[in-house]
């Protein structure tokens, strides 16, 4: 069993009726092989935002918006999945990342990275975060895994 990891928002979408091909397969594998899958609270809002945007563009049926709360409640009830609430420790780290001249991240990335500090491991597809991989490990103690890293870990 692989230790706890925080997954970025992309890995939540397969639970909400979105097919991202390889990501869906990896999410299923991770669900079986990772001790606990963590997500940042902000990822819930990001998923809802993305579903609404896709619906407005005619890419998904309304049914997926309708099922959102039901699917979320299934995840909340699942002992293998945990959403980490925003707290003081996360807020302090978001501020530290904002003041860090060596790291340029948008606010959502900052929140996701800061939330990942709670479990020390982040899995992300975000290139902006991935390019700061070494720095995040050295200065903030957060190990960042890419999709390729995750594939190797789960193989």
């Amino acid at each position, binding site marked *: 069993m692989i230790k706890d990891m925080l997954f970025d*928002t*992309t890995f939540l*979408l*397969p*639970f*909400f*009726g*979105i*097919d*991202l*091909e390889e*990501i*869906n397969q990896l*999410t*299923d594998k991770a*669900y079986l092989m990772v001790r606990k899958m963590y997500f940042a609270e902000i990822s819930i809002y*990001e998923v809802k*935002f*993305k579903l609404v*945007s*896709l619906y407005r563009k005619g*890419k*998904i*049926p309304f049914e*997926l918006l309708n099922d959102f709360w*039901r*699917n979320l409640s*299934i*995840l909340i*009830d*699942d002992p*293998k*999945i945990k959403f980490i609430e925003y707290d003081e420790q996360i807020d302090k780290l978001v501020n530290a990342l904002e003041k860090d001249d060596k790291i340029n991240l*948008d*606010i*959502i990335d900052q929140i996701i990275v800061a939330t990942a500090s709670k479990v020390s491991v982040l899995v992300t*597809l*975000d290139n902006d975060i991935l390019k700061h991989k070494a720095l995040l490990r050295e200065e903030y103690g957060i190990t960042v895994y890419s999709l390729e890293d995750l594939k190797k870990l789960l193989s």
Partner: protein
Amino acid sequence: MITLEIIEGFVGKKGEIYVKKKLREALGLSPGDKVEFIIKGNIAIMRKKPSARDLLKAKKVKIDVKELLNLRKEFEEELIK
């Protein structure tokens, strides 16, 4: 033609709904499982609440990963508007 089978249950004093073994077996229900009701007028369809893995296996709409990643920018713009 669909043949519907009707199985009786009953409502307890505190509103609990008791269902027969035959129905529990048909739905694969075990103690502690959650169920959900789909309601239309005065008719309800009961089914076992799916698990997280059931959600992963459910029918999906294919979306390009790049398109989703681009939506991040829009999300951030909405947040800081």
